[in-house]
């Protein structure tokens, strides 16, 4: 009895195996084995930062491509691309490591609130409704769309400042936060030697007086940095300065002259000789006391503290 069962099942199994073997031989699709090899060295985060749908897509594109110029896994960076290059026997394109930079320094202290938003906590939604809880309509809203977009936990909203902060160790410069920010505040910049970088931490295009009134740390477009820069790396357009990181040579002269402290320097050693030479160098650190602060006048404006509301939040509903 048992024997019949064993034999019949065994026979069915054997026939099935033969069929499967025949089918797999007949319908075999050839896949370049290098795709799997390349995929194995990629980080596997499937972040899409390279511009392809996930790591498998990028691996396929690398194998197909004639040269690796312009192909970069932003997460793995140079080392991973070097490994990919050795697998494929191609030259790895030179790639500068990048990092996301939040260009807003309007902290809660510097940028007083003038209204209160009680809608859905999403930067994208808030920015379709109005400029934000402060008088600066360009600054960080702080509802964390970038935090949600980041696959690496590299960005957070600092509860003290109310502004997004990038953890440069974790940041892979995939650019997801850049796309998520409705205010276009986050930018990918060159990481710089020893992670040292200088950037204008403000995107306020309002005229100087208006920007200053809204935020004491705002770039007022005075142009001092533009004049000071020996390399022509700084340009003021639309009342806001921008440092071209391809031209910047990290001399930090612009940081010293900025009257509002809007230009930030990161990861530099503390200045040695500058202190006795120029007393104004006090205004160097990011959170430096901005020169004569426009007293938080906005607070005293007589207008009622009115909060924003999106349409149809059912206020009339009893």
């Amino acid at each position: 009895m048992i024997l019949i069962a064993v034999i019949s099942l065994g026979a069915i199994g054997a026939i099935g195996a033969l069929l499967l073997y025949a089918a797999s031989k007949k319908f075999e699709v050839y896949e370049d084995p290098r795709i799997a090899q390349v995929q194995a060295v990629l980080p596997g985060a499937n972040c899409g930062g390279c511009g392809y749908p996930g790591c498998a897509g990028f691996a396929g594109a690398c194998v197909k491509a004639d040269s690796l110029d312009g192909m970069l896994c932003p997460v793995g960076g140079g080392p991973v691309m070097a490994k990919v290059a050795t697998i494929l026997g191609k030259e790895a394109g030179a790639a500068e490591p990048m990092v996301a930079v939040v260009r807003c320094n309007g902290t809660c202290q510097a940028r007083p609130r003038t209204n209160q938003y009680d809608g859905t906590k999403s930067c994208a939604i808030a920015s379709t409704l109005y400029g934000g809880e402060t008088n600066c309509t360009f600054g960080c809203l702080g509802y964390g769309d970038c935090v949600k977009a980041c696959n690496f936990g590299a960005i957070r909203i600092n509860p003290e400042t109310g502004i997004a902060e990038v953890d440069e160790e974790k940041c892979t410069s995939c650019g997801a936060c850049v796309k998520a920010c409705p205010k276009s505040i986050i930018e990918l910049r060159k990481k710089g030697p020893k992670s040292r970088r200088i950037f204008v931490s403000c995107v306020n295009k309002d005229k100087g007086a208006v920007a200053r009134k809204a935020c004491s740390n705002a770039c007022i477009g005075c142009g001092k940095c533009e004049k000071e820069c020996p390399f022509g790396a700084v340009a003021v357009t639309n009342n806001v300065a921008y440092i071209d990181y391809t031209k910047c040579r990290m001399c930090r002269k612009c940081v010293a002259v900025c009257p509002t402290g809007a230009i930030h320097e990161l990861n530099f050693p503390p200045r040695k000789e500058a202190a006795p030479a120029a007393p104004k160098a006090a205004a160097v650190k990011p959170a430096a006391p901005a020169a004569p602060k426009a007293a938080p006048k906005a607070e005293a404006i007589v207008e009622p503290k009115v909060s924003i509301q999106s349409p149809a939040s059912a206020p009339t509903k009893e």
Partner: protein
Amino acid sequence: MLRTFRIGGIHPPENKLSAGKKIEVLATPKQVIIPLGQHIGAPAVAVVKKGDLVKVGTLLAKAGGFVSANIHSSVSGKVNKIDNALDASGYRRPAIYIDVEGDEWEASIDRTDTLVKECNLSSKEIIDKIAAAGIVGLGGATFPTQVKLMPPPGNKAEIVIINAVECEPYLTSDHSLMMEKAEQILVGVTLLMKAVNVNRAVIGIENNKPDAIAKMQQLAVNYPGVEIMPLKVQYPQGGEKQLIDAVIRRQVKSGALPISAGAVVQNVGTAYAVYEAVQKNKPLFERVVTVTGKALANPSNFLVRMGTPISCLIDAAGGLPENTGKIIGGGPMMGKALISAEVPVCKGSSGVLLLTKEESVRKPMRDCIRCAKCVGACPMGLNPTLLMSCTEFKNWELAEENHITDCIECGSCSFTCPANRPLLDQIRLGKGKVMGIIRARKS
């Protein structure tokens, strides 16, 4: 049996506090701020500069494109500056500041009250006059009127529908206008009929304004082809497509223009502005604005010059109540909270609503229980809860398949949701994204 639109709809409390109040003329302020983007489409291009002297009705800015509108001065005085100013959008945008001196009007404007019925102008001349006067849809959408009166080739207008529905709770500006300027409105309607070469017009009025219906019906007998149609109260009957469905029982196809159903829809305020522009040479520089709110001492309807700060209106209506939580520009359903009372009145401002702190609080959001109340309420026959999820999960293809771009942003879904989900907030965001994707695909 009164007609209404057939899909969806809700019944918010009406709260028409200022109904029956006469239109009061508001004094001109010391300075007006006239934004250059008061309409849908390209912002107007300023033709005056700092220091120029202007009169009431002087052209300040020319239409900046096909879909755009002229902007005229609402006061006489001197151009102080052209600078960015906070407007109802919540952003700082270019505007013309004018310091008021005296009240001198352009000589071409007929300031008498006499009713001028006769008009010998051709259709083209009427449309040109409307365009020159900078008239836009005064119901709130601010779409340039002359564009609507020139149907794209292949479409033929059969009927003019006048939107006197005023379905937004609280607002009474159209109602008060009908009570005081009925005859002028009817002349304006005949002008609009002439402009699009039709011989039938229907003025749709919701049944909660029996006095206006009676008055208009009594006068309309003298105007051949003009019919007054009382409609059953239901929000959002003032939506263009909803009104067409209510009045002539035709559905506008998804993505199509109302003209494809043979209808040209204009607001009753627009009809009055057309009368003034064509018969009195008066450009659009003032409008009726309702100022209202449960805590407000004296809810009123004001005739306001464009560019007057909203704070002036609130002061005239008895001052800002102490426990004001929000100032809403427009009605409670489609209006938007303002962040400052210094925002100027624009062509699209139909009302100012002051909500108390208790009224303005958002209730906490809970999970969707799939009750489908929003599906039943949507006047466009959409599935709001699905569209909200599409936006949250960034599934733009599914959102497009489910016609997210047909959303008229009436807010019925958010109003009706028992879980207080911000359906409209998300759908509006998704609609913008999908429209961007469609535009990118076309180009």
